[in-house]
């Protein structure tokens, strides 16, 4: 069972009920639960959206789009029903924050879904978890059932005349379904492949109706924002990056775990102070800062603030907040191959640059890894990855290309030395061992 960690530098907003038994609805209510949604019903959609905009909350799934703005894009009048869709299909390697959220505070996700529904005029919300989180679905299903039993969900919620329903379900194993339009396809009972955009989900989404899709952490922040006020929440973070964020710090650190830190918190401090520094006193080699799709940073690049803008300026991304730490013993060749093997496995195959590009890069890096590479392979890998960028319907192609480009650009010498050193060598491990799942 995932264990909880804590550090004095944490600012607990979305995690403030973790470990306090808030899966129990009475405990959740005792800890200010379901207050925000009742305020939201009393004060109306405009107030909700004003507070959400003031909060500076940006999407916690990875793209960082302003949440209040996203909600305001949904047309007020619509012939078709409107929907709220919570994306709990967390599958980006390095990312496990929503896992802890669903485990410890499922009612916050439910309450946030209701608030989003009120903001856009929807009466039905969906909470969609990845298939592997079936044990968490049981927890969320129980929380939903408890909320119905109390009259918090269903007809005439809290006796206010407002109706709202929530349906929960899981996927069945597909990273691509984390992409918002592929998620809608999957929820409609189809293969989870992306849709062409525009139209965007806010206008034509689930079942053709206007739909708000938000990451689970984003949605769970909404009740806290309404209770503390948008401006107060914004002040917790940095400029244009309101509030706090759940960061998962994994890999070679002494105290891996999910920590809630203010937006803009220094990455170096997050690794060395919050997560206790590099495991076993080794040296830091590199950091993948926001899930496996984010360009890798070298050890001397990490003195930077953890928010969408500062990470962008540093040439990488904040992504999903999954910080993966690599010590000096890691082979970047092996790490790059494991990363691309994932994207090759998960490409839905619709767009040729992604389907073929990930496959060629994996094959080339596999050959290099097994000692059969030559220096031109490094150029080929970079060329292939650069030709995938921006040429696919959904971001999976970019998610595979961006880290690949960064690996070969920042660690080219290591690739070349590896090729040179293994020219006549035997494979370290077999291809079957390394890419057995693929």
């Amino acid at each position, binding site marked *: 069972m995932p264990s909880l960690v804590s550090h004095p530098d944490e600012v607990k907003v979305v995690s403030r009920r973790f470990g306090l038994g808030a899966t129990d609805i009475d405990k959740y209510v005792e800890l200010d639960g379901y207050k925000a949604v009742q305020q939201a019903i009393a004060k109306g959609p405009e107030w909700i959206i004003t507070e959400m905009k003031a909060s500076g909350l940006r999407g916690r799934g990875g793209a960082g789009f302003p949440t209040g703005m996203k909600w305001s894009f949904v047309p007020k009048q619509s012939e078709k029903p409107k929907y709220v869709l919570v994306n709990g299909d967390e599958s980006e390697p390095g990312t496990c924050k929503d896992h802890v959220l669903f485990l410890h505070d499922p009612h916050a996700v439910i309450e946030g879904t209701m608030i989003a529904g009120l903001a856009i005029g929807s009466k039905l919300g969906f909470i969609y978890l990845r298939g592997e989180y079936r044990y968490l679905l049981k927890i969320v299903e129980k929380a939903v059932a408890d909320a119905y039993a109390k009259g918090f969900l269903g007809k005439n919620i809290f006796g206010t005349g407002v109706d709202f329903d929530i349906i929960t379900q899981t996927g069945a194993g*597909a990273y691509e379904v984390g992409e918002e339009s592929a998620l809608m396809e999957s929820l409609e009972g189809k293969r989870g492949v992306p849709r062409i955009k525009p139209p965007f989900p806010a206008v034509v989404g689930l079942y053709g109706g206007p739909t708000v899709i938000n990451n689970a952490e984003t949605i769970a922040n909404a009740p806290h924002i309404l209770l503390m006020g948008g401006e107060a929440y914004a002040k917790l973070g940095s400029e244009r990056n309101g509030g706090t964020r759940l960061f998962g710090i994994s890999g070679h650190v002494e105290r891996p775990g999910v920590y809630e830190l203010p937006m803009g918190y220094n990455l170096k401090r997050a690794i060395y102070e919050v997560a206790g520094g590099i495991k076993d006193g080794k040296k830091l080699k590199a950091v993948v800062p926001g899930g496996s799709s984010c360009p890798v940073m070298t050890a001397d690049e990490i003195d930077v603030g953890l928010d969408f803008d500062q990470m962008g300026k540093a040439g990488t991304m904040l992504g999903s907040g999954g910080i993966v730490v690599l010590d000096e013993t890691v082979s970047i060749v092996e790490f790059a191959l494991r990363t691309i093997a994932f994207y090759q496995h998960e490409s839905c195959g619709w767009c040729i640059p992604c389907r073929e590009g990930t496959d060629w890069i994996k094959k080339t890096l596999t050959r290099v890894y097994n000692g059969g590479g030559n220096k031109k392979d490094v150029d080929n890998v970079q060329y292939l990855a650069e030709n995938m960028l921006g040429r696919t319907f959904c971001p999976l192609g970019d998610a595979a290309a961006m880290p690949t480009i960064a690996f070969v650009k920042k660690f080219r010498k290591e690739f070349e030395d590896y090729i040179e050193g293994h020219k006549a060598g035997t494979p370290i491990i077999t291809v079957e061992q390394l890419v057995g799942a693929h």
Partner: protein
Amino acid sequence: MSEIANTIFSPETAARFDHLVTIYPLKRSALVPMLLYAQDEIGYISDAVISEIAQRIDLLELDVRNVLSYYSMLRTKPAGKYNVQVCTNISCMLRGGYEILDHCKHKLGIGHKGTTPDGVFSLEEVECIGACCWAPAIQINYDFHDDLTTEKVDVLFQMYRDGLSFDATGKDVK
């Protein structure tokens, strides 16, 4: 009561399916959950499962097959009673995921997608299971086991062999 006269599912699962097709704006939305629940009960997605689910949602069997072939957790052949899924993605790899996988292969005497002759265990190398901060981790059926060592894996296998069950909130060997 199920609308299907001769359902292959238990009364509980049949009743759940009857309910599932009524809750969504379009009943096709029930397809992926139904395939998962069917697999939980039958062990895999058999031809009979496909046939009955297609009838229940008014789809062609081809439509069902088209969807089931897309998702990696759905299988068309039986697995062991306990399906051991070892994560080797980046965070697990950095903390010994491949050693855990090799140990499982050695201990169970089977490879990726293999099943032990007694049918108790099957083994799979899988992509990220969302347990990055508690790596290395494996999933056995729907139970997570994290912060693993090869010794802990041995204890786990013995516990499963002895028929000790694990509750859904992750009672494990730590």
